[in-house]
């Protein structure tokens, strides 16, 4: 809360300050430009008039000048200026003043050539320029700056008004802007605080994706991250439940064996029971390990130690591992020559994938049957097929063979945990690949693994 307030206040004060200072600077600059250009214009008028009157005087003497000034006064062609002609003795031979101004003695002019009139606004002055003519007379032309001052005063008012508007707009804009900027951050803080204090990860930052700026994107990303965490948590919780559930059956069996041995009593029976217990506990351990491996791979927490693996060589290793088993069972296993494909994968896990598939194939193929392994490259994938001539899988079982502990053979006569294919699927998917099975009962099954190349 305090964080937001402080941040918000700071942001809006900065915004308003920058806005107001900027506005005033622009207005001030405009004022200065206007003032100087108006003064320049007045000076231009004074000098132009001075030059014109001087040439009239030179041509027609004082009467010509007088006529011309009076004519202009009557026609109102020109704004009334201050005109004075000083004779050689510095006495005024001709004087015209703008309305409201009285004549000035030459001495009243200050060095800058301006004269102030106490009767007028203290800031109003008469700006006067002089020229010495050829016969020694001095011609003076002056202009009051009253109009200019009035104009500038009006402008000052406008600048003041604009500044006030700018201040109000700046503060308001700052507040609005701050609110829209800080609010999403505050929402984020609020949600994070809620999650930390309650531990519930189901709250979400309000969706502002319409805005599309960095803060909105952050909120959206944060929500996505929360979703991901939730999914992971759910998956882990679920796999923990599964493990607990899957372990109950073998542990119950273990307990039953021990209990029966205690009641039976004979040393031979007890020895037998102990041996069974050992085997059973090994099976539980193996199951637990496999379940953890599957869960790890499924939730994506597993880190794969990837390296370049030549698929045909790996298949050859796996075939070699099962050579004796297949031989003992009378199943012919053959690795067909295929493409030389290399994938980037974790060698051990990939080997286990193929070992489990081959293991299954041999297990479900009767004596005299065949298992064919092949590898080829298709588009950007390595395709490994393991085809057997076994009993096949009935269509109603086919979709469920990837489930944990699912076994089509309800009697559980074949050895195995029913986890092999789940592990295969989890590992293949962890590598970004797919695995599928097609089967025709009585003809055989084909398992196909597709792994991305590179």
């Amino acid at each position, binding site marked *: 809360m305090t964080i937001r307030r402080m941040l918000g206040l700071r942001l809006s004060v900065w915004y308003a300050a920058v806005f107001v200072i900027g506005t005033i600077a622009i207005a001030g600059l405009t004022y200065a430009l206007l003032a100087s250009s108006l003064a320049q214009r007045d000076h231009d008028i004074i000098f132009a008039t001075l030059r014109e009157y001087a040439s009239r005087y030179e041509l027609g003497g004082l009467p010509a000048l007088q006529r011309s000034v009076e004519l202009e006064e009557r026609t109102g062609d020109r704004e009334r200026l201050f005109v004075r002609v000083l004779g050689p003795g510095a006495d005024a031979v001709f004087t015209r003043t703008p309305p409201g101004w009285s004549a000035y003695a030459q001495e009243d002019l200050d060095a800058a050539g301006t004269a102030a009139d106490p009767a007028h606004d203290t800031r109003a002055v008469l700006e006067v320029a002089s020229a010495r003519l050829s016969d020694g007379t001095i011609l003076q032309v002056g202009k009051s700056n009253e109009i200019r001052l009035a104009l500038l005063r009006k402008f000052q008012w406008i600048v003041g008004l604009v500044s006030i508007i700018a201040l109000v707009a700046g503060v308001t804009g700052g507040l609005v802007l701050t609110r829209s900027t800080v609010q999403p951050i505050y929402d984020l803080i609020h949600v994070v605080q809620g999650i930390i204090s309650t531990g519930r990860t189901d709250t979400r930052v309000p969706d502002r994706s319409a805005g599309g700026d960095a803060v909105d994107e952050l909120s959206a990303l944060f929500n996505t991250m929360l979703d991901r965490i939730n999914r992971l948590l759910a998956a882990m919780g679920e796999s923990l439940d599964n493990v607990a559930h899957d372990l109950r059956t073998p542990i119950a069996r273990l307990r039953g064996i021990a209990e029966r041995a205690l009641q039976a009593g004979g040393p031979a029976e007890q020895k037998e029971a*102990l*041996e*069974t*217990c*050992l*085997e059973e*506990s*090994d099976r539980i*351990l*193996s199951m637990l*390990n*496999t379940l953890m491996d599957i869960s790890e791979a499924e939730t994506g927490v597993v880190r794969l*130690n990837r390296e370049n693996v030549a698929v045909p060589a790996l298949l050859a290793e796996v075939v070699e*591992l*099962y050579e*004796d*088993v297949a*031989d*003992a069972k009378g199943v012919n296993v053959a690795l067909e020559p295929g493409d030389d494909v290399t994938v980037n994968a974790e060698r*051990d896990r990939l*080997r*286990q994938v193929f*070992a*489990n598939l081959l*293991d299954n194939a*041999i*297990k479900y193929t009767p004596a005299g049957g065949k298992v064919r392994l092949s590898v080829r490259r298709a588009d950007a994938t390595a395709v490994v097929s393991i085809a057997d001539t076994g009993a096949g899988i009935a269509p109603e079982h086919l979709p469920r063979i990837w489930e944990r502990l699912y076994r089509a053979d309800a009697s559980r006569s074949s*050895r*195995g*945990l029913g*986890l*092999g294919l789940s592990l295969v699927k989890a590992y293949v998917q962890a590598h970004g690949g797919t695995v599928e099975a097609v089967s025709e009962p009585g003809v055989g099954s084909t398992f196909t693994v597709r792994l991305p190349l590179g």
Partner: protein
Amino acid sequence: MLLVEDDATIAEFVEKGLREGGFAVDVAADGAAGLQRALGGRYDAAIVDLMLPQLDGLALIDTLRSRGVRTPVLILSARRSVDDRVRGLQAGGDDYLTKPFAFAELLARVQALIRRATGAAEPNRLTVADLSLDLLTRKVHRGQTAIELRPREFALLEYLMRNAGRVVSKTSILSHVWGYNFDPNTNVVDVLVSRLRDRIDRPFAVKLLQTVRGVGYVLREPS
């Protein structure tokens, strides 16, 4: 032999087994006590659990090594990930065994550690009863009869003969004969053992390769 293990039941069963195997055993129940003893006495080997009260196993091994104690160490741990294994071996452990384990496996590993540490001379001929295996010529004889073995069968027999009289588990056979650290979920080992049995035992009266149910296999002269 030093055993550092905080679980009383496991400590007792390992201690008993080791004594029966002919070792004198000291037991420490926490890391600090274990370190004291390891620094104080001269042990042929130490078995160290990783999760220990007061001082964990990795820190213990690290301290031992930094003080120049070269006693071979077998790490026992309930954690089985490759990373944990690597960390344990990097800290200065010599071998790594995951709980739960077969005692026979533990014993075999400890003996191997001691053998390696004392630099026992590598024999070039292994014998059990009238069965002999020449490591140089790779020839196997039962009495005067020469026996032909395929490479995997030879590797299995060599492993069993090196551990003659000790029970070896299927898992350790799989990792020693094939170099695999996973459970192939099948009877790969059983099949190889039965093939080997066909070669070295079936034609003869005395059966040397015996199955110990629930534990593994052992090569020994029947008493």
